[in-house]
């Protein structure tokens, strides 16, 4: 008999995320990976500032809340102090690719042996839907009410591609969670990003294209569709670096 159980690495706290938000799926995938690899007892997670700011309440492993954008620096400190532990940061697009871009690039360039899960939903969710560094051209947000205009607001940043210019990263992959098939694939990628760290391979990074129906102004179903129609053409899925391969 197959019983659908909550992963042990998730606490019983009820998630605060909006209906149709994919944070919950990704939390679960991270927790499943931690369970399956048997690393909960030695894992230290870093929560960002943004919608997943309360992630420290949801994961059963030890958790540290970082300042906005600083999770990779905090993770670096933790990993240097506890080299035998497993350290992951869970960050959104504003946190990782805007205010924290310096920390992101530098940590990747050092090849810190940590795992980063990057939630790219092309918007600032927590503060009510402002333009993110990854918002698409023409995307309407609270701070791009006429649509993102490249002339004054520039173009979205492709983080995996940017990091793939560096020598040090061991693993860079972009996935999404908008279908059962894609969720399975995302699970594989996230687990690999943790396995890499266990194996001492170095900086492992998984970007997850995620849905924000609330701030996109869409139904959850439409939001999942929008990932296919609008996001993937801008952010192609795939492996950008795999030192093993």
């Amino acid at each position, binding site marked *: 008999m197959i019983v659908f159980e909550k992963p042990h690495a998730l606490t019983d706290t009820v998630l605060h995320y909006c209906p149709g938000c994919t944070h919950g799926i990704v939390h679960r995938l991270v927790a499943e990976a931690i369970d399956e690899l048997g690393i909960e007892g030695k894992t230290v997670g870093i929560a960002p500032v943004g919608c997943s700011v309360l992630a420290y309440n949801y994961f059963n492993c030890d958790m540290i809340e970082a300042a906005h954008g600083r999770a990779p*620096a905090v993770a670096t400190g933790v990993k*240097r102090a506890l080299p035998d532990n497993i350290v992951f940061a869970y960050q959104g697009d504003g946190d990782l690719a805007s205010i924290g871009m310096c920390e992101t690039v530098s940590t990747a360039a050092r090849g810190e042996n940590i795992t980063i899960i990057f939630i790219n939903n092309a918007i600032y969710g927590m503060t009510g839907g402002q333009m993110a560094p990854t918002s698409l051209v023409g995307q309407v947000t609270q701070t791009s009410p006429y649509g993102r205009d490249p002339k004054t607001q520039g173009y979205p940043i492709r983080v995996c591609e940017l990091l793939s210019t560096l020598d040090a990263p061991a693993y860079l992959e972009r996935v999404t969670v908008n279908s059962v098939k894609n969720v399975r694939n995302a699970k594989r990628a996230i687990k690999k990003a943790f396995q890499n760290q266990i194996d001492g391979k170095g900086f492992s990074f998984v970007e997850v294209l995620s849905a924000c129906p609330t701030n996109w102004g869409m139904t959850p179903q439409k939001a999942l569709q929008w990932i296919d129609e609008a996001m993937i053409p801008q952010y192609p899925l795939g492996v950008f670096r795999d030192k093993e391969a």
Partner: protein
Amino acid sequence: MSETVLMKGNEAIAEAAILAGCRHYFGYPITPQTEVAAYMAKKMPKIGGTFLQAESEIAAINMVYGVAATGHPAMTSSSSPGISLKAEGISYLAGADLPALIVNVQRGGPGLGGIQPSQSDYDFVTRGPGHGDFHVLVFAPSSVQEMADLTGRAFHLAWKYRMPAMLLADGTMGQMMEPVNLPEPCNAFGDDNPWAATGTEMKRPHNIINSLDLSPENLEKMNFARFERYAKIEETECLWEEYLMDDAEICIVATGITARVSRNAIVEARKQGLKVGMIRPITLWPFPKKVLAQAADQVKAFLCVEMNMGQMKQDVELAIRCKKPVALCNRVGGMIPTPDEVLDSIRKIAEGGMEA
């Protein structure tokens, strides 16, 4: 005590931190504190420690935050403009009740300012350098020996009270060499830190290192509790040095390099029959208010000698409840008052010609 060696102030900080058991240093290059990083870069790899040149001051303080969250001692060092950048991280350290050492070898400001010595970060750091209600322990060394001794003490008390500590020096203190007796190696840090994020080993509920609390009632409670701890610290951890205060009629208040300069002026003033003494605050937070208040009953006037626009003068006036006039002898922008200038101020006060 070990044999006497000759060291730069900055090097003495680094060695004293290592002797206190610190094995993690994160920094970013900035004059005039570069020797701390250089020393750590040489030494840490040889003793199994971490030296990491961070991508920014901000990253450095957050790496310190990460190490501190695991219950290990960590430090960073910088100079004034860099401390502005670290303010965010210092606030988070305070909010998460984490111990760490931040060294500030001050230079002139504001803005990029200059690279010559200054004491103009006084207000900034004694009020809690960052957003929110908090304090950091602030130590102001006045010799290379104190650079070493107070580094150890700062670590020890940061750990005891689970809060950040700052060693507030200036360019002169950092660059000068003096004989110093280094302390014996010790471990200023408990090995058992049940609050730390080290992995649950599946044996305990998870630890959360955090400064966020969305419930105002809870956040208020935490702030009140923290300030109860601060009150205890103000009661017990003030440090100061008194110099020729027994019969003093004028009391100089100075720290760091200006206290050294003032000493020369006091010796000269005494030769001229002027009864001058000095109270040198060694901790700037907590500020030694009581001893100053007591002195206010004895002396006719106070003279603050500072390398800023009179920032500490306000604390002195507060401490003595404006009972006696407080005058200021100051240079700024990287300039250091000379003993002659201090002596001039002393004479003016003695002649009743210097308005407070």
